[in-house]
């Protein structure tokens, strides 16, 4: 079962509904014990980096989640803040990140009046490596919905899956073994979000 981790940040109903719409069952899990039934995980999240880490800590998620992801190696997708939490740390906070991926979360520097922060809206993301997550070739129409002021910068270029430009290039998606992160909100990205969720549900 695809299990969506509820650690108190953000509304998760739209993720469940998106999976339902494309024919897959998923469930929101509220306690670390429920991780046992999970075969795939979604780590969502909206808000500040330190708040995210603190919530995971306070609700007892850290160790069981680490085991599930790094030992059992079940597929996990981090969304937005969830993606950023998977990195080693963030310019937004002082806490260590989960460190599952060799990457760091940085703040956008406004390049011009044209580049407003947060980066909010629909932007194109280009696939930069082969993946089961996005099988269709690059498509100028493939846009996703983003809302963020910080972005992920990967240290190993081969981890980068999707690249976006907003003032500067940044990693809109990474994938390393069973670990996937996307900066945008697939659950709000209509048909391309459905494509991505469908592939995650089907191909992993």
């Amino acid at each position, binding site marked *: 079962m695809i299990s969506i981790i509820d650690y108190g940040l953000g509304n998760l109903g739209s993720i469940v509904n998106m999976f339902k719409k494309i024919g897959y069952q998923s469930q929101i899990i509220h306690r670390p014990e429920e991780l046992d039934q999970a075969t795939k995980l979604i780590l969502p999240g909206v808000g500040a980096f330190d708040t995210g880490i603190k919530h995971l800590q306070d609700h007892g998620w850290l160790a069981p989640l680490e085991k599930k992801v790094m030992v059992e190696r079940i597929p996990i997708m981090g969304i937005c803040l969830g993606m950023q939490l998977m990195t080693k740390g963030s310019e937004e906070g002082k806490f260590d990140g989960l460190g599952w991926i060799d990457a760091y979360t940085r703040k956008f520097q*406004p390049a011009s009046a044209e580049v*407003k922060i947060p980066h909010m809206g*629909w932007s194109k993301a280009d696939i930069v490596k082969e993946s089961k997550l996005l099988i269709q070739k690059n498509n100028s129409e493939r846009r996703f919905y983003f809302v963020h002021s910080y972005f992920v910068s990967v240290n190993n270029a081969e981890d980068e899956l999707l690249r976006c430009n907003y003032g500067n290039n940044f990693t809109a998606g990474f994938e390393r073994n069973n670990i996937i992160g996307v900066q945008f909100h697939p659950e709000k990205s209509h048909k391309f979000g459905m494509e991505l969720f469908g592939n995650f549900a089907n191909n992993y």
Partner: protein
Amino acid sequence: MLTKRIIPCLDIKEGRTVKGINFESIRDAGDPVELASLYAQQGADELVFLDIAATNENRKTFSSLVREIARYINIPFTVGGGISSVEDASALLEAGADKVSINSAAVRNPKLIDEMAKAFGSQFVVVAIDAKKVDNPWIVHTHGGKKPTDKKLFSWAEEAQQRGAGEILFTSMNHDGTKNGFAIDALSKLNQLLSIPVIASGGAGNMGHFMDVFLLGKADAALAASIFHFGEVPLPDLKKYLKDRNISIR
């Protein structure tokens, strides 16, 4: 690069859309979820739902509608109307709204913007400003445009940004309902002043108006209601029109 956003706005009363809606493909024109799904399908970038009869009795109905919308709509949506406290906003966030818009309550108590931005993040807080150009200054009005205030558009917009608003939704009361185009001058000035996105509202009548609002008004997003609801400007046609004219559109 980011695309310009096109945002249909649905007025809601007691859980139903108001204003007649002219779509053959819709079975129940009063059902906000069905209309919203159609707009999402047609390529709307976001949606706004305004509870126009926001009263305490209606609040529950509206929350359950928001829950329903979140269940079926897979593009971002903002809800507004009568939101006057962090608790109101929290209930709507919990119901699945991506953003809330606040208007009169923010004018009455500007600290509400700070509180909401702190509680939910700026990306969640849209400050809606209804203003009317009276002689020279643009005077901010509240209560659905009924009450003039002592605030001026530009300084109030800057204050809202400073307090943590994530976006400004500016409705020109002079243009609203005229179908003669958006308030281009005021919009372009807002764009110069602010570093947060501006959503233009009021005056959309044809496809050229959208081109003007993006090119000349420099708006990040444009909102309209009746021209979409009545099928005067079909969304797919509008998107194609703008793309053909090299405006960055999804």
